[in-house]
Each structure stands twice: as C-alpha cells, then as structure tokens.
C-alpha cells in the first residue's frame, strides 16, 4: 500500500466526526417532570421561557400553553454538547394554578454530550417565579433614592 493511498483516511475520519457532531436526529424522550404551580398560566409561561433561556435554549415555539427550545450543537474536542430539545407544556389547573410537564428530547447522534434538563428547568422556573420581578411584573418604582 502506498502512503498516498492512506493520506485521505484521516481527512475522511475527521469529516465523519464533524458530520456526526453536527447531525441531529431527534429520537429519545423521557417521561418528563410534572409539577403544579401556584401561579397563573401566563406567569408560569414567562417563567418557562426564562428557564429555557438559562439552560441555553433558543426558543423555537412560544404559545400561551406550550414553550419549546433547542440547545445548539457545539463541536468539541471529544464529544461536544447540545442538540437537546426541551419543552414545557402548561395546563391551567383552576384556582390560579397551573400544571406543567417538562420534557427533554435527546438527539440520537451526539447523545454522549447531552443531558436531561427536566429538573434544572423546573428549578429555574421556581427560582424565576420566586423573584420579585416575576411576582410583580408591573413597573414599580424602586424605593431607593
């Protein structure tokens, strides 16, 4: 075998790795995390958008009862990360409450660098809802002078 015959192999391998890291095939989904929050659906929806933003999602769908975001693929030295699609479904539960269902869909390729974001999103939503700005989103003058 001549050396020139082998010269394309590393390039092919490198190309294959790059293609794999950039390819997204949505497959695996989990059972999600469910919770009931003592907030109106419109407030919880805003908190869901904030939570998805905090975990690095680009918001792809934003309806009054459904928010979906996707984390971009990042090429890495070893496995990279990203490619997950995270959704929050909101269902009014009466008495000013809302039921939420958070789900993470991982893509088949690049799964090694992906994680389940259900609990982190719920944690961020709770944090966002506890913040004064979210609880009172009106334009309130600060008490400072």
């Amino acid at each position, binding site marked *: 075998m001549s050396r020139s015959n082998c010269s394309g192999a590393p390039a092919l391998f490198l190309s294959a790795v790059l293609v794999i890291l950039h390819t997204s095939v949505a497959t695996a989904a989990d059972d999600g995390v469910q919770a009931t929050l003592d907030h109106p659906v419109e407030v919880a929806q805003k908190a869901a958008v904030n939570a998805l*933003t905090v975990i690095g999602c680009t*918001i792809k769908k934003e309806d009054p009862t459904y928010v979906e975001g996707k984390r971009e693929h990042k090429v890495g030295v070893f496995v990279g*990360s990203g490619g997950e699609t995270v959704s929050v479904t909101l269902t009014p539960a009466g008495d000013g409450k809302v039921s939420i269902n958070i789900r993470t869909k991982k893509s088949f390729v690049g799964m090694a660098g992906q994680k389940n974001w259900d609990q982190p999103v719920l944690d961020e939503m709770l944090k966002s809802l506890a913040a004064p700005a979210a609880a009172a989103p009106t*334009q309130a003058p*600060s008490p400072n002078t």
Partner: protein
Amino acid sequence: MPRMPIARGTYVALGALLCFSGCATTQSHVSFLAEHYPPHAADAAVEVFRDGVPDRAFNRIARLDVHLEKTGFAKSYFAEALPELKKQARQAGADAVIEIEEKRSQILETMVYHVTATGVRYVPSP
C-alpha cells in the same frame, strides 16, 4: 513522496485548531417585565452595577440573559458577557444593569456560563 509532509502538516494544524479553539456560542434574551420602551442608540452609555443599585430612582424594566458555552474545558468570564449584556440593555431601553447573577455549570467538556441581570430605566428628574 513529497505530498506527505504537506498533508501531515495540514492534519496537525486542523487537530490543533480543534483542540485549542473548540466551539464557543453566545446567546442572549431580553424579557420585558411590563411596559416596552424604545431602544437606546447603539453607543449609548449603560451603567453596570455588579453590587448595589443606582443612587437615583429607577424602574426595573427588563430581565436580561446572556449565555456562553465553550467546549474544550475553556471557561468564560464576565468580561466576555458584558458587551452582549450592554447591547441587550440598550435594546431594552435600559439605562443601567443591576442584580447581576452569574451561574456556572459543566457538561463534560463544555463549560457553561450564564448571566442574568435586570435592566433598569432611570426615572426622569422633575
């Protein structure tokens, strides 16, 4: 054959590029808390309060988020997020940024850095 040294050098350079640059992304998001305000000029001054709040009266008008991710175990720092934070503040019509909160996490080789802040608008003096 004279081709090999050139090809080898190319692969080494590519490998080094991947190893030392990795991938970096920056995302940002503005969420108005209530009323929307017109954006400020691109070169408008934005005060940044890492601690405390402005001396003058203000209204909280927007939540600002800046998200940075880098692969290859490379960390991000506040100075890198600051230009985007100010840009978002200007777009929101904010005069200053307060209540800055930094959050770091890691996903294997990806280092995640997120900054959440509040954009405020000064109340005009009477």
